[in-house]
């Protein structure tokens, strides 16, 4: 009964979102009564949809296995927390949550008052029709409300055990919030184009929305990376899997977008570029949904293949792109390009880096789609892996960091003063060179590209440190979020490079009570236990490790889950200041020995720390914007 109500409310909400769109089309959008009507209509549609989702959560919590999706992905033995998160463990429920978030962003935008009624109402109309498109996709091709007839199964099939994890429970929602958040700048820029008045500074209005979505995307991607690191047992933080790449592309585009938004609001250039970027960011987010949902690309993340879903999404994205780009081109004459960017100004460096972002996005897109094209042309299956991405990302990132460092000494709207003082730059370069030599002394030979990366990472960090110190001394204003985020980038480059040269691993075969040595670490296999847990059996090996005078225990596990009979490995990780000791256990050999893998992963925590610094800087930007408005 509740399942039917939930289903019915979703359909009703779709109809009211459609109504909202029609109201925007027919009413006088600059009138205040029309604005009120549109605002209410949107809110009603959203609230109905939210209730529908909450009822669905209730169905999952109460083990209503007459709903086919819940029966396939939940189980009565699961803790309540995972009963809820099982909703987004597969396609239909993920899509449901996706649309709830999409409409939630629109709802927040709807509540907020805008001085330009026409643009605000147009934005609401655009958001509504996008929601309708996705709701129809949900109801027609991926219905989560389907009922098992005539009898409900006794118990559900359970959620995949590798997904029963707190980080993974919050990773998809955060990522989705990021993806769909870019609907606001997208809708607003289209509304700006339809409205056709160049004087409106839409860039300032969408800044906080875009930064917020970017923060969610940053956190979502990092959570996924962190989860993959400890759960999959490979010890890596990034695998250049197509599904990771489709999250990285909108992130790169959004990062470029946020930068060029601030250029536009500072000096009224790059306006056309911003409009194009707002379309690109949102399209890349949708493209991500298409890649993951259609199963067109072979990936460990891909959900069940369904050509119908893929075709629908592809057609929907094509329509959105066609309409928005058409509008963009038809309004091209709105802008005259008389205003040029002066070379060596701050704008020029940010613009150059925008181009570098573009190159990274384009290359990643090629890496994802090239196997498809290649197979069509040559009938030969290929895949594109880490070597390609490293070959592109390393040099481009280094070029971009040079621009970044140069931009610190530059000014808005005029070239760098060549006669000015560059002492802080020189000092940072000198310190970084000393740092690089010191690192080289401890590490030994390094590839040239790694040396360059480490050097640039250090330069960024020290240059911003010098900037902060000098600003404090001279009592000048510091752009804290910028310094924080860019120092985070420096740390990211530094830790990725250090991780790639320092990390090592070794495989041992060991019996209980045997001892092995690895890089100053003594590893003793102390005991092996069999454990019976509520939903799985487990073999737990306990090792006693001794390094640098410290002794501790690590207990990796191998589990067999009852509901699906799936076997999983649980890694055991000791976090030390500069490195992780990462232990996994494989299978037992015929002679009674166990296969053990020991990894030393250097600087891995700093990779996520740098992402956290970037996310935090985004939050500070939003806080500042809100404070300025109030």
């Amino acid at each position, binding site marked *: 009964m509740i399942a039917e109500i939930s289903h019915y409310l979703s359909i009703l909400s779709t109809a009211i979102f459609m109504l909202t769109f029609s109201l925007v089309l027919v009413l006088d959008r600059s009138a205040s009564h029309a604005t009120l009507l549109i605002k209410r209509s949107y809110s009603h549609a959203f609230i109905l949809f939210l209730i529908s989702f909450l009822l669905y959560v209730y169905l999952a919590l109460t083990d209503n296995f007459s709903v086919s999706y819940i029966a396939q992905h939940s189980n009565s033995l699961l803790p309540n927390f995972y009963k809820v998160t099982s909703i987004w463990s597969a396609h239909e429920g993920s899509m449901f949550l996706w649309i709830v978030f999409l409409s939630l962003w629109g709802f927040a935008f709807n509540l907020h008052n805008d001085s330009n009624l026409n643009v605000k109402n147009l934005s609401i109309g655009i958001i509504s029709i996008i929601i309708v498109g996705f709701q129809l996709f949900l109801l027609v091709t991926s219905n989560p409300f389907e009922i098992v007839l005539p009898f409900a199964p006794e118990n559900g099939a359970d959620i995949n055990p590798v997904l029963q994890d707190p980080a993974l429970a919050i990773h998809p929602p955060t990522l989705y919030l990021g993806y769909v958040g870019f609907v606001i700048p997208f809708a607003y820029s289209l509304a700006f184009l339809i409205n056709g008045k160049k004087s409106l500074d839409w860039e300032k209005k969408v800044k906080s929305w875009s930064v917020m979505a970017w923060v969610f995307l940053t956190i979502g991607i990092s959570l996924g990376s962190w989860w993959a690191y400890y759960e999959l047992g490979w010890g890596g933080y990034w695998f250049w899997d197509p599904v990771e790449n489709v999250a990285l592309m909108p992130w790169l585009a959004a990062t470029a977008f946020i930068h060029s938004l601030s250029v536009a609001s500072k000096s009224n250039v790059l306006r056309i570029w911003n409009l194009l970027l707002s379309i690109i960011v949102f399209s890349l987010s949708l493209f991500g949904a298409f890649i993951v949902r259609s199963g067109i690309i072979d990936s460990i993340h891909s959900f069940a293949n369904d050509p119908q879903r893929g075709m629908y999404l592809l057609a929907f994205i094509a329509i959105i792109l066609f309409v928005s780009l058409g509008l963009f081109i038809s309004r091209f004459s709105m802008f005259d390009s008389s205003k040029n960017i002066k070379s060596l100004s701050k704008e020029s460096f940010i613009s150059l880096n925008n181009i570098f972002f573009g190159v990274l996005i384009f290359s990643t897109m090629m890496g994802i789609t090239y196997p498809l094209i290649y197979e069509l042309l040559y009938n030969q299956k290929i895949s594109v892996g880490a070597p390609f991405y490293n070959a592109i990302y390393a040099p481009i990132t280094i070029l971009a960091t040079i621009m970044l460092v140069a931009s610190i000494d530059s000014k808005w709207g005029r070239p760098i003063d060549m006669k000015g003082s560059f002492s802080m730059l020189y000092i940072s370069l000198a310190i970084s060179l000393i740092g690089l030599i010191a690192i080289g002394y401890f590490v030994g030979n390094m590839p040239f590209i790694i040396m360059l990366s480490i050097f640039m990472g250090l330069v960024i960090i020290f240059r911003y440190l010098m900037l902060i110190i000098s600003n404090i001394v001279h009592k000048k204003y510091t752009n804290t979020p910028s310094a924080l985020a860019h120092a985070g980038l420096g740390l990211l480059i530094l830790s990725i490079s250090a991780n790639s040269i320092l990390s090592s691993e070794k495989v041992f075969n060991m019996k209980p009570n045997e001892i092995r040595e690895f890089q100053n670490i003594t590893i003793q296999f102390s005991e092996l236990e069999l454990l019976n847990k509520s939903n799985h059996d487990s073999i737990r090996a306990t090792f006693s490790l001794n390094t640098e005078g410290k002794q501790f225990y690590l207990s990796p596990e191998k589990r067999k889950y009852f509901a699906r009979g799936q076997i999983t*490995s649980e890694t055991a990780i000791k976090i030390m200041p500069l490195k992780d000791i990462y232990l996994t256990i494989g299978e037992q050999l015929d002679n009674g020995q166990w296969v053990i893998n020991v990894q030393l992963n250097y600087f891995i925590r700093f990779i996520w720390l740098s992402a956290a610094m970037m996310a935090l800087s985004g939050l500070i930007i939003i806080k500042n914007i809100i404070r300025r408005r109030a």
Partner: protein
Amino acid sequence: MKTHRKKRLINVLLLSFLSGAGVLMVLYALNSNLDYFFTPSELLTEEVPSNRRVKVGGMVQEGSVRREDSIISFTITDYSKTIDVSYTGIVPDLFKEGSGVVVLGYLNNGKVDAEKVLAKHDENYMPPALQDK
């Protein structure tokens, strides 16, 4: 006015040249870093240089898994031809005889030295190239 136009033309030409060069460089990087996917039969009939990283997919032949120290060796079959693989490390939880596997590595004297062994996170997984066999 005329010089303005000329300048613009030069800008456009320069931009197209640079983006063309950029695209070519990306394509070059792509082509020199591809992993070709083979079934054992394809691998034996086609000439693959030993410095070329390959992906080989198929089923782990029953009774072929052997271990020596930390090296695991097994045979991949596509039910017509087979190829031997050796690997150092822990194989994935879903790796077992008779189920699907994809390895990434280099061809060395008719055997594959694997850098990575992947088993799909799905017990019913079949490598796409084998689905119609």
